[in-house]
């Protein structure tokens, strides 16, 4: 029984832990933290933050994403969670507050318009309860393109 053995066991473990810690740190950097957004506090810095200004982003040269991936994102609670308020193609237990989107591909909306509405719908409806998914970094540009592709394909 030697120190060498212990070291030979511990060293890879330590290396693995360091690497995984770095990976999680990188991932965390990308994710917006709740404290970056307004809160109710009278004293904490987030209490002084205003809501992010409206962004109307309607890229006309939009390359559509993958509808299947878009469906996953739209249904996932931690991602779009669109089902919380909207009926959608293939979804179950959907909410009823928002418009039914299950045939949204036949609505005549262009992909760019759909993208803009998911990104930040306040440009159309300033008082909307729909979260500004792009402006507030809930979804990435690619994820929103995927969701737009899914909606375009919903018929």
């Amino acid at each position, binding site marked *: 029984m030697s120190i060498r053995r212990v070291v030979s066991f511990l060293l890879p473990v330590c290396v693995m832990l360091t690497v995984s810690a770095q990976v999680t740190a990188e991932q965390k950097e990308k994710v917006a933290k709740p404290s970056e957004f307004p809160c109710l506090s009278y004293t*904490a810095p987030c209490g002084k933050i205003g809501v992010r200004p409206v962004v109307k982003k309607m890229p006309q040269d939009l390359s559509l994403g993958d509808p299947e991936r878009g469906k996953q994102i739209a249904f996932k609670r931690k991602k779009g969670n669109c089902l919380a*308020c909207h009926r959608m193609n293939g979804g179950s237990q959907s*909410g009823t*507050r928002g418009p039914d989107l299950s045939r949204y591909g036949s609505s005549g909306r262009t992909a760019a318009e759909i993208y803009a509405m998911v990104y930040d719908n306040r440009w159309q409806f300033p008082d909307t309860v729909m979260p500004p998914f792009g402006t507030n970094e809930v979804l990435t540009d690619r994820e929103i393109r995927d969701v737009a592709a899914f909606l375009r394909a919903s018929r």
Partner: protein
Amino acid sequence: MKPKAMFVALAGIFAASAWAVETEDRYPRTPIVPEQGVWGDQGFSNTIQYWGSKEALNKNASLQDDPDNVWKLNHKHKDGDRVDMHPGHIGVEEGREMVDSWSSKKPEFLKCLSEGKGSLQGLAANYPKYDEKLDRIMTVEARIEHCSQTHLPKQIKQGSPANTTSALYVKSLSAGKPIQVDLSSAPVEQAYQRGEKLFYKRIGQLNFACASCHTPGSVMGHKLRGEVPTTPFGDVAHYPTYRTPVGELEPLHLRFVRCHKQMRAKPLPPGDPAYTDLEVFLSVLSNDYPISVPSLR
């Protein structure tokens, strides 16, 4: 950076911040007349006709089996369980033992808790209230925290299980008594005004306000996945409550914490002045409605 570029950047920041302030305050409001207490719901969700009294609840009992309309009962049909044994009742017993043992060791504690009266009977119905000596608004939970800090060896912090359990006991001694928060007290009235503003403030990554789900024209009355958000009127009367989804007693401020986490906003510590103002606002919306603890939600 060139001066011109800097000017443009500064002007941009100024414009953005001015705009942001404007959006915060422009949330559509349904006027609430605080003097009407719980009856203000008549111009709000207008569901009080279904849950405002025992007779109304009995008359509309069939709504319990109607998934699209059960929200109109404002969960009040669950208060029928008050007479049966559930973990909330065990909480009341535990709270009684706690408060009795602290009071027998330190009679000053009970004196402090009962504001010199010696009895806790019916006191909770007038909370939150302004305490002149301390110059702040006190909730039942804050009173327990304060009196324990002053008279017991250990502070019973708000949000701790002991604080929640003893608050449940104190409130149970006012069960059935209509809530009467004193709006004629200027500090309480000011707290109400601040609380109302907080209710409409957009917060968190999802950009929601309390109002986004609990006002007419919002999600209220519509399905949010499997849930249907209800009116904020009459709601605080059953707190602290035994929450079946999480299997524990939950005071109002920890309910706020749970909401704010779901809204992806920074939650505040129980007893925070903002949470206290929100509690004042919601309590005024329960004025005239009887305290309903222990309860299940």
